[in-house]
C-alpha cells in the first residue's frame, strides 16, 4: 500500500487552521482554570460553581427539550411534505425553496413579535406563556436547514421509481413512506436534525426577547456576572453540543443509512 503523506504546504495551512480554532479554546480553558477568589492558576472552582448552580441543569435540560421537540415537529411536518412535493408537485420546489429562505431574511425581532401576536390571539395562555412557545418559533427558524437537507436527500434517490416499485408490490402510501422512503433519506434527515439541534442550543435572540430563560440566556447571564465560571460554562456547552451531535449520529447510523445514500446517489 502506498504511504500517504501530507505535502509541507498543506501542513502549514492545516496548522494555521487548527490554531485558529484551538487557540481560543485553549485560552478559554486556561482562563477557566483560574481560581474564582484569587484569580490564580490552577483550580477547578469555576467548573464547580457552574455545575452546582441549579440554573445550569435546568436551562440546559430546557434547551435540549426544546431542541428535540423542534426536531420532532419539523421532521413530522417536512418529511411527508418534501416527499409529496418531489413526487407530485415538482414545480412547487422553487417556490418552497424561496419560502425556506424567508427565516434568514426576517429579523428575529420581527419574527418573535409577530409570533407572540399571532399566538396571543388564539392559543391558550398556558401555551404562549411557557417556553414551549419557543418551539413554534424554532420550527420556523429550522425550516431552511431541515428543508434543504431533506431536499438534497430526496434528490439523491429516485423517488418516483421507488414509490411505484413499492406500490406495485402492494404497499400502501404509509408503508411506502415508512419502509422505503424514510430509511433512504435518513442520513439527510439526520443532518437536518443536527443543524436544528445546534441552532436551538445556541439561539439567544428570540428566547431573550420573549423573556424565557434558556441555556443561551443563562450563558449570557453568567458571562455578565462571573468571569471565570463563564469560561468554564462556554467549554461545557461546547462539549455538550458535541456529545449531543455524536449521540444523534450514533443513534441514526444503523446499517443501510449511509449505504442508501451512496447507492441512491449513483
Amino acid at each position, binding site marked *: 500500500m502506498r504511504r500517504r503523506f501530507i505535502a509541507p504546504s498543506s501542513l502549514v495551512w492545516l496548522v494555521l487552521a487548527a490554531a485558529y480554532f484551538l487557540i481560543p479554546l485553549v485560552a478559554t480553558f486556561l482562563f477557566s482554570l483560574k481560581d474564582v477568589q484569587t484569580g490564580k492558576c490552577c483550580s477547578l472552582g469555576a467548573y464547580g460553581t457552574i455545575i452546582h448552580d441549579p440554573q445550569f441543569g435546568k436551562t440546559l435540560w430546557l434547551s435540549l427539550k426544546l431542541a428535540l421537540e423542534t426536531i420532532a415537529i419539523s421532521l413530522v411536518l417536512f418529511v411527508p411534505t418534501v416527499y409529496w412535493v418531489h413526487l407530485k408537485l415538482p414545480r412547487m420546489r422553487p417556490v418552497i425553496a424561496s419560502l425556506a429562505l424567508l427565516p434568514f431574511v426576517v429579523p428575529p425581532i420581527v419574527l418573535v413579535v409577530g409570533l407572540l401576536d399571532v399566538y396571543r390571539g388564539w392559543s391558550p395562555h398556558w401555551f404562549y406563556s411557557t417556553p414551549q412557545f419557543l418551539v413554534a418559533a424554532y420550527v420556523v427558524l429550522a425550516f431552511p436547514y431541515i428543508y434543504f437537507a431533506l431536499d438534497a436527500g430526496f434528490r439523491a434517490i429516485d423517488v418516483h*421509481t421507488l414509490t*411505484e*416499485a413499492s*406500490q*406495485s*408490490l402492494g404497499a400502501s402510501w404509509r408503508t411506502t413512506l415508512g*419502509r422505503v422512503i424514510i430509511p433512504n433519506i435518513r442520513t439527510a434527515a439526520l443532518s437536518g436534525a443536527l443543524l436544528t439541534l445546534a441552532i436551538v442550543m445556541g439561539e439567544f435572540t428570540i428566547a431573550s426577547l420573549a423573556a424565557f430563560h434558556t441555556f443561551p440566556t443563562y450563558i449570557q447571564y453568567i458571562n455578565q456576572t462571573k468571569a471565570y465560571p463563564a469560561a468554564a460554562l462556554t467549554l461545557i456547552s461546547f462539549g455538550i453540543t458535541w456529545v449531543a451531535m455524536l449521540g444523534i449520529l450514533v443513534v441514526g447510523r444503523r446499517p443501510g443509512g449511509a449505504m442508501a445514500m451512496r447507492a441512491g446517489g*449513483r
Partner: protein
Amino acid sequence: MAATVELQELRRTFNDVPALQGINVSLGGGEFLSLLGPSGCGKTTALRLVAGFDQPDSGRVLVDGKDITRTRPNRRDMGMVFQAYSLFPNMTAEQNVEFGLRIRKQARAARSKRVKELLETVGLGHAGKKYPHQLSGGMQQRVALARALAIEPRVLLLDEPLSALDAKVRVQLREEIRRIQTQLGITTIYVTHDQEEALSISDHVAVMYGGKIEQVGTPAEMYGAPATPFVAEFIGTMNRLEATIADDGAVDYAGRRVLVDAARGRATGERVLVLVRPEVVEVSPGENGGVLAGEVVSHTFLGSETRVKVAVGDGELTADVPTVRVDSLPVGARVTASFPPASARLLELSADEPPKQVDVEA
C-alpha cells in the same frame, strides 16, 4: 390459470399533447406481448395505465374480464420491473424480494423459502445478502425480476428493463426473462424500443407510433408482412422504393421498369412504396443488362455479411452480401442489383400522407 388482459380504447393526453389515441390490444393467458416503438410513441404511458400509476382520460383496462381501470396500483397484483434503480437501496437482495411477501403478511418460513427459490431462479442464489449498490446493473435487474415475481402477480409488466445494460448482458437476460416467463406461464407486457429484443422474445409484438398501434402480430408477421410504411421502416432494415405502377406486374422506379409480383392487378400510375429486405437483394459486378444498375457507395461490415449501398438513379438500394464475396464489389464499382419479383411487398402511398420519417433510438 394465467390472466387475460385487455386494453380498450385507451386515451390519455398530457397538457393537450395526446400520448395515447385509442389503444386496443388484448392478451391471452400466459401470452408475452411487446409494445415496441420509438421514444414518445406512448408505449410507456400504456404500460403505466395497466400498472395503475396513471389514469386514462377514457377507455378501460380489463384483467380476466374485470374492469380495473380505477383500481389503485397496490391492489392490482401486477409485478413490475422498471428501467433501473428500482431496488430499495436500504434493503439487501433478499429483503427486496421479500418486501411484497411481507406486505402480504406471509409467514416467515414460507417467505424465506420463496425468496431463496426466486433468487435461485434468476441465478443469484449466492447474492442474497448483498445490497443493491454491491450488485452490477444486470444483477440488479435480476433481483428486480425476482421481486416482481415473488408476489405471484397476475400480470408481469416490464418497462424497458434491459435498456440500461450493456449489449451482452442484454441478450443473455432477455433470453432468461423469456425462459422464466414461459416456465411460469405468466401473462406479460414488455415495453421496449429495441426491435431485435421485441422480435426475439415475444409471442406478439404491437408496434406503436404517435400514440396509436400501427400493427399487432407475431414477430414473423411483423417482419415478413409489415402493414404500414412505419412498421416496414421500424422492424428490421428495409429498402423503401417510391414507385408508380407501370403495367401488370411491374413498377416504374427512377425511370426503370422493375418486376414486382405484388403489382399485379393494381391501377397503372398508382403511387406505391416497394418494400424489399436487404437480404433478398442480389448484387453482381458489372452491368449485365439488369435494370437496377448503379455504383457501390459504401460498405458496412456486419460480420458474416456486409451491408452494401448501391446508388441507383436518384435512389439508394441496400443489400446484405456475404462478406466473402464483397471483395468483388469495391466502393465505386459499377454493379447491378436485383431482387426476386415475389420477394417485394407493396404499400399504397397516398398523396396527402408522405412516408413518415422515423427517429429511431439506438
